[in-house]
C-alpha cells in the first residue's frame, strides 16, 4: 500500500512536469503579447518580462478592421467548409452503406483509390486556378479539404454497424424511399459520428493556411491564418496598410505579432476544455489518420 502511494506521487510529479512542458510554449506566446514593447526589445521575449503592457491589444482594438475582417473570413470559411463537406460526405457514405446498391463495389473502390494515389500539388494547383478560385473566398473552402476517403469510409461503417437492416425493411414496407430513410433515420442515428467528423473539419478549416498561401494574394481576403503567415514575412505591409507612415516606427511590432497569434488561437483555447473529450474520442475512433 505504501509502495503504491509513492508510485502515484512519482507518476504524478513526472506527468505534471510533462504537462507543463506541453503548455509552457503557449504561456510564452501569451506573456510576450502583454509585454511592454521597449522591455521586449531590451530583454527579448521572456516568461518574466520587466514590464507588462496591453499596448498590443490596444493597438489591435483601435486598428481592428484588418483583424476583424480576417476573423470573419475564417469563421465564414470554417462554417461553409464544414457544412458543405459534411453534407456531401454523409450523402456519399449513406449511399455506399446500402450493400445491394448496384455498382457499390466499383464506386467504393474509386472513392478508396483517392487515398492511395494523388496527382501531386502541380496538377491540383493548375486545376483549381483554372476553376477561378484565386482571390475568392472559395479558395479556402473547396481545394483539398472538403471531403476525403477516410471520412467517407468512417461514416459508412458507422451507418452499416449502427442502423439495423430491419429498419430499412420496415421503412420500405411503409413506402418510404431512400431519401426519407436518409433524412429521417440515417442522419439522426449517425449524429455522433457526424459530429466527430464535423469537429475535426472545423479544426482543419480554422487552422488552414495552405490554401491562403496557394491561392490568395489580395490582403482584403486574408483569413486569420493567412494574415499571420504573410505577417511573419512582412509585418508592416499587412498591419499598417491603412495607418499613417509616422506611426509605423512606433508600432509595438514584436508584441503585436504575438498578440494576433494569441487572438487566433483564443477560440480554440476557450472551447478546448469542453470539446477535448470529443477530440480524444475522435482520435481513438480513427476520425483522422495522422
Amino acid at each position, binding site marked *: 500500500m505504501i509502495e503504491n502511494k509513492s*508510485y*502515484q506521487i512519482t*507518476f*504524478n510529479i*513526472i506527468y*505534471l512536469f*510533462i*504537462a507543463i*512542458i*506541453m503548455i509552457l*510554449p503557449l504561456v510564452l*506566446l501569451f506573456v510576450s503579447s502583454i509585454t511592454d514593447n521597449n522591455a521586449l526589445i531590451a530583454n*527579448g*521575449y*521572456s*516568461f518574466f518580462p520587466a514590464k507588462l503592457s496591453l499596448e498590443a491589444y490596444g493597438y489591435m482594438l483601435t486598428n481592428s478592421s484588418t483583424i476583424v475582417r480576417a476573423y470573419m473570413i475564417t469563421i465564414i470559411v470554417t462554417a461553409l467548409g464544414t457544412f458543405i463537406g459534411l453534407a*456531401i460526405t454523409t*450523402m*456519399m457514405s*449513406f449511399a455506399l452503406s*446500402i450493400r445491394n446498391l*448496384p455498382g457499390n463495389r466499383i*464506386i467504393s473502390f474509386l*472513392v*478508396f483509390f*483517392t487515398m*492511395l494515389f*494523388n*496527382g*501531386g*500539388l*502541380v*496538377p*491540383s*494547383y*493548375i*486545376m483549381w486556378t483554372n476553376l477561378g478560385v484565386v482571390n475568392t473566398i472559395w479558395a479556402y473552402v473547396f*481545394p*483539398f479539404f472538403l471531403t476525403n476517403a477516410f471520412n*467517407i469510409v468512417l461514416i459508412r461503417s458507422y451507418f452499416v454497424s449502427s442502423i439495423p437492416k430491419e429498419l430499412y425493411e420496415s421503412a420500405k414496407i411503409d413506402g418510404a424511399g*431512400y431519401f426519407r430513410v*436518409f433524412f429521417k433515420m440515417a442522419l439522426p442515428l449517425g449524429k455522433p459520428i457526424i459530429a466527430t467528423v464535423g469537429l475535426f473539419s472545423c479544426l482543419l478549416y480554422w*487552422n488552414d*493556411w*495552405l490554401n491562403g498561401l496557394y491561392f490568395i494574394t489580395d490582403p482584403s481576403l486574408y483569413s486569420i*491564418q493567412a494574415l*499571420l*503567415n504573410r505577417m*511573419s514575412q512582412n509585418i508592416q505591409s499587412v498591419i499598417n496598410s491603412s495607418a499613417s507612415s509616422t506611426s509605423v516606427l512606433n508600432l509595438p511590432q514584436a508584441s503585436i505579432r*504575438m498578440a494576433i*497569434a494569441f487572438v*487566433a*488561437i483564443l477560440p480554440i483555447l476557450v472551447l478546448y*476544455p469542453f470539446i*477535448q473529450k470529443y*477530440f480524444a474520442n475522435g*482520435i*481513438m475512433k480513427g476520425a483522422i*489518420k*495522422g
Partner: protein
Amino acid sequence: MNKKFAKLKEFIPLYLLMIPCAVYLIINNYIPMVGIVSAFKKFRIMDGILGSPWVGLQNFEYLFRSNDLTIIIRNTLLYNAAFIIVNTIVGLFLAILITEIKNEKMKKLYQSSILLPFTLSMVVVSYIVFAFLSQENGMLNNSILKNHPVEWFSDPTWWPLILIIVQCWKTVGYGALIYIAGIVTIDRSLFEAAAIDGAGKWKQIKHITLPSLLPSIITLFLLSVSRIGYSDFGLFYLIPQNSGTLFNVTATIDTYVYSTMMAAGGIGRSAATGLMQALVGFILIILANSLVRKLSSKDAIF
C-alpha cells in the same frame, strides 16, 4: 426488362445522393491524376496542361542532374525515420504512464495538456518557435544563452534537433491517445494476476502492456513508413522561416515541390518530383497494408 428497371428505380435516390461528392472527387482527385502528364511536358500557362508541348523525360533529367534531389530525399527519409522512432517511444511512455495514474481528475488534465498542441495551426507554432529562437528578441538568446547567443535561423547545426522537438511536441499526443485506447482494452485481471504473482510495475509493462500493444504499434509504424516520402509541409516551410541558409537541413520533397512550382520555369520539375513521390508512396502503402493485413487483419486499412 421492366422488372429490372423497377428495381433500379428504387436506387435512383442513392445515386442522386452520391453526385455532389462524386463530382468533388473527380475535380479534386481524379482530374489532377490525369494532370500528372505535366511531368512530361514543358508547361506554358496559356496552353494549359494538355496543350503544352511534350518534352519526354527532360524534367526528370534536370532533376537528377541537380544536387537538390539527393538532399531533399535524404532529409525526408531521415526526418521521417527520426519522427517515427521518437514518436513511438515518447508516445508509448506517455500512454503507459497516464494509465497508471489513479486520480481521474489529474488524468483528464494530463490528457488534455498533451493533446493541446495538436489543435494549433503550424503558423501559430512558427510564431511560438520564433519567440524562443529569434536572433535579436528570442527567449533563448536573451535569457539563457546570453553569453553565447546562437544565430538560430542561419546556423544549420541545431535544426535536426529543433524540428524533431517541435514535431514531437505538436503531434505526440495523437499517438499517445491511440496507445491509451489500446491499453484500456487490456483485460485488467491479467495485471491483478501478475501482481499476485509478485510481478512489479516494470515486469507488468514488459510482459503484458507492451505485447498487447504490439499490433497497434506495428500498425502505426507501418502506416508511417508508407508515408515516408511525404512530410509535413508546414513544419519544414514555416518553422525555419523559409531561411535559405538552412536549405540543406530543412528542405524536404514537399517544400521543394512548392518552391520549384513557384519559381520561374519550375513547374515541370515540380510535377516530376511530385509524380515520383506519389508513385513511391503508392507502392509503399500497398506493401505496408499487405503486411498489416498479415499481422493483424482488423487494423488493415483495406
